[in-house]
């Protein structure tokens, strides 16, 4: 019974950690818009965490530049299990207009498995909330698979 309660809690209290992997800041602004009074993602329990140790969902934006690649991977490794990786916008998935640049090491799925990708350049806040809600369900499934 206690395990089931904790499994349910995993979906109801997802804390976000946001990494900018060379993003143009467009997606980052849209993510902040999700937390404003108009969209208020906190009503679903979302909260921006200050450190990767507190996070459940890692949100990556940007095409993963050569400079940021190692930092992104190290940060993702520091997030305790169960964790879900969400890509925000087109860049981390396809490198978008930055594809082929000498300074881009992406896309992100060359290095880590991605659970949810939110498309758009930049995605609408509604799309972000939809993607994050999907991420909470995956979080719960991962938690149930633990132990």
């Amino acid at each position, binding site marked *: 019974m206690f395990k089931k309660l*904790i499994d349910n*809690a995993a979906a109801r*209290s997802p804390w976000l950690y946001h990494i900018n992997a060379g993003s143009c800041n467009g997606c980052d602004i849209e993510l902040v818009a999700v937390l404003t*009074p108009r969209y*208020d993602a906190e009503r679903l329990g979302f909260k921006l965490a*200050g450190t990767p140790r*507190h996070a*459940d969902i890692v949100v990556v934006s940007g095409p993963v530049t050569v400079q940021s690649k190692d930092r992104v991977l190290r940060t993702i490794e520091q997030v305790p299990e169960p964790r879900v990786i969400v890509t925000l916008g087109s860049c981390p998935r396809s490198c978008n207009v930055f594809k082929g640049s000498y300074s881009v090491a992406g896309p992100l799925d060359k290095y880590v498995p991605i659970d949810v990708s939110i498309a758009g350049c930049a995605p609408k806040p509604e799309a972000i909330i939809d993607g994050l809600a999907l991420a909470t369900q995956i979080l719960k499934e991962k938690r149930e698979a633990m132990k």
Partner: protein
Amino acid sequence: MEIMDFVKYAVYILIFPGALFTCVFGLWLAGVDRKVVARMQKRKGPPITQPAWDFLKLCGKEVIVPAGAARLMYMAAPYVGLVSLIVTVLFIPIGGLQAFSAGGDVVVVLYLLTIPTLALILGGSASGSPYAGVGASRTMVSVMAYELPLILVLLAVARAAGSHVTMDGYSILGATFSLEMITRVQELIGPLLFDWRLLPAAVAMLLVIPCEVGQHPFDVGEAETEICEGPLAEYSGAPLAVFKLSHAIKMFVMTALFCALFLGGIGTGMLWLDVVLALVFSTAVTLVCMTLLHAISARFRVEQLFKFFWTVVSGLALGSLLLVWFC
């Protein structure tokens, strides 16, 4: 008879007003705080059960101990803090119900209240993270900032209540350090909040509470936007859950202490009704001194916090103490 006493104290410690009740009520209080802050910002806000879900979720996360951490201290600190807070609750009268009482329990409470903060500082330092180091030193500054006005407030209340106690050994110096006595005096002369000499002390106490708890305008040590929640930066999983729980319980402990000092002795004669009334007062004090301040203010810088507490807040408390002593 001895078995009955044993059962009675077991209930006091484990269920009410000890471990189980304080955890549940603390988390509920934290939920109300978050909800009301959200409503003040025109948001819908998380459900009131949100801190409880956060707690359960953190219990189910992986616990990571950093390679550079002092393992024993790192793992023990959150539990030491939690236990000392639960012990503190046993000494505070809630609507006249006090699990343990002693001649000088104001002093006991004062010392017990520093232990959770100390545990936070030690746990943070043990994690070996630079963020935690900065957070620990900032927390130490805020402890020094609020301890002085807190002691002055307690002295003022002790003196005001003690000047009415003449019949027994508690009042040799005309001051009583027994919370039970302070409550009983208030039954006779009415709540000390309505004593004009103690009004500045009550205001000072209302400003000390958010600093002691680490709530928004005074949360220099755990500033999540600057130093990643300071001492908690490296914590994950169950130890982090216990720290969050301690934070929630501290809200209840401090507001209950305020109610015992300034709003005691309001009662109907029925014990359970008095307890409910005290809990309602606790919630009201939380809303006034923590939620409202959180919603309307930005964070102090460290040196601003220190200056504010040692001039304005200490000044209020000292003024009250002098008034009580000489008027």
